């Protein structure tokens, strides 16, 4: 574990990912102490629709709430919804995917049919409908996202499990009498866990974008302060028509940076946990190295650069 953390830190993208993610988490936790105002406190209201200026570095919104403070507190919703959903989706998807893949038969068919139905119905409209039926408190949002998101993970895990099932180490385990539960836990789960971890991080990132989208349409938690909701207020407050960029840019930028950080973290994690994938940076370096060697060859009057072409 420590070794992985070390390798992650040395990985250029990993370092960026860790720093950004850690920064956002710290901001979210420390919100009450670093935010200049409390957006949940009805008493703290300033003048409405102020452009950026002294006292309010990012201006105020239509109700006089300080934008900077909203930005800081907004991190909480995104992180809570994103991380929790990422974990739940991964756990549920892994569970059902392993069951479907390993047990086969009726369990498999049942789970896969449910997945089919979930894939058939378009996502965002279904989310909106469910939000209508089930309410929009943030924990409901988590439930809704989980309900819709596990199918993708399950499918992916299931195909991994199917290929693992016939591998020798599983067969060996079965031949000495190991019970299915044991195999699924000790062998299969262990083999797919790198995949799960990476998927979890990337899912969290995706959920944050989706949550922002849902809030943006007005179906997020009405009592919470979230970046998506800030954009919703910007849209319905016609910020675009009045050029109020300070309503539009900060929340979107916050979403972008956070999601970007998570994705960097996730991709770096993938490369660290699975060293077989050739690193992209290696190829760029190789190209430069090639030019240098071909140059050497040319100078010496020998050397045929590009002995074969770039196919392959």
């Amino acid at each position, binding site marked *: 574990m420590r070794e992985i953390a070390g390798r992650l830190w040395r990985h250029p993208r990993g370092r960026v990912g860790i720093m950004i993610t850690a920064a956002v988490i710290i901001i979210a936790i420390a919100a009450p102490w670093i935010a200049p105002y409390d957006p949940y406190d009805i008493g703290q209201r300033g003048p409405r629709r102020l452009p950026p200026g002294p006292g309010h570095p990012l201006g105020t919104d239509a109700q006089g709430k300080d934008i900077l403070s909203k930005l800081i507190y907004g991190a909480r919703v995104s992180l809570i919804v994103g991380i929790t959903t990422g974990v739940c989706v991964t756990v549920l998807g892994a569970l059902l995917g392993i069951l479907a893949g390993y047990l086969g038969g009726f369990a498999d068919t049942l789970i896969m049919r449910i997945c089919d139905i979930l894939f058939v119905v378009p996502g965002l409209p279904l989310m909106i409908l469910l939000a209508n039926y089930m309410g929009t408190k943030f924990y409901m949002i988590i439930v809704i996202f989980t309900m819709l998101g596990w199918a993708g993970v399950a499918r992916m895990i299931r195909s991994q499990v199917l290929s693992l099932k016939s591998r020798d180490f599983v067969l060996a385990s079965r031949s000495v009498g190991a019970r299915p539960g044991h195999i699924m836990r000790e062998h299969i789960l262990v083999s797919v866990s790198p995949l799960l971890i990476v998927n979890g991080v990337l899912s969290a990132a995706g959920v944050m974008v989706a949550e922002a989208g849902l809030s943006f349409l007005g179906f997020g938690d009405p009592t919470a302060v979230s970046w998506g909701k800030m954009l919703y207020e910007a849209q319905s407050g016609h910020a675009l028509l009045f050029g109020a960029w300070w309503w539009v840019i900060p929340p979107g930028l916050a979403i972008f940076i956070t999601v970007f950080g998570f994705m960097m973290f996730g991709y770096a994690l993938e490369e660290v946990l699975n060293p077989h994938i050739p690193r992209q940076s*290696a*190829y760029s*370096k*190789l*190209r430069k*190295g*090639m030019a240098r*060697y*071909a140059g050497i*060859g040319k100078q010496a009057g*020998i*050397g*045929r*650069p*590009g*002995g*074969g*072409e*770039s*196919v*392959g």
Partner: protein
Amino acid sequence: MDEPTLVVEDLVTWYLTERGPIHAVDGVSLAVQRGETLALVGESGCGKSATALSIMRLIPSPPGLIMSGRVLLEGRNLLELPEPDMCKVRGGDVSMIFQEPMTSLNPVYTVGFQVAEAILVHQKVSEREADKRAVELLDRVGIASPARRAKDFPHQMSGGMRQRVMIAMALAANPKVLIADEPTTALDVTIQSQILDLIRQLQQELNMGVLLITHDFGIVAEVADRVAVMYAGQIVEEGSTGALLECPTHPYTRGLISSVPKMDDPTGTMLYSIEGASPNLLDPPTGCRFAPRCGEARPECRECRPELESTGDGRRVRCPGGGGRI
């Protein structure tokens, strides 16, 4: 015997990695005559495939790079040809077949299409004519019901049949030289001899030169006229098959031949294996590359790199202590 059709002179090919260049082919010279089969033998990683790919200029680049040397096809240096001319040579004058028939054919095109494509690249005929000739070629390589089979896709055929298709593609334009890179390694033993016989037969019909790459001395004994043994990117011994098998000179060659268990060995004979492991081609040892594993190594072996020297009657050996060890 007239001039050899294909002559390789001091070929050097590198594979560039993050840690530096791998000297995959380090000054290899060989020659193939028409109508003759030269076997290139060696263990995995010794550079035999890299040599073949360099001749065809199919080295993936990056990371590979042909650094120096000459490859003469009837006098023309292939390494200096502009790419469009080289394309005409590939498949037209020099053809190559590969080890894995499973993956060497495109899964989305029919077999007949792929053979016809080989014909169309080098000959100006109509598509219908090319299809007809493709069927003839399939017949010639021993595929039953060739007209029907031509419409099959590769995944519908067995490994042996796929390799026959590869051979058909390689022969489409009557090449002068055929390079076969371990053509039977991935096939069943029973199919192996069929394919080898086929290659032999076609070679005689077309008077082709064949460069056969293999790690199996059994195959060498069966089909090769001459043998070149490769180790760590260099040729260490070369000669006619009979002579070399009867009295191998280089310690590595002797080790290889001893490693093959023989039918008439008494029961209980321990299997012989050469000690040690092949050298790291990133940083090859100075001096003789086999010295670390050689039972007969002498101090001077490790110091200066031995050259390939003729020992008369067509034999060449790269060993300072070599020659005359009977």
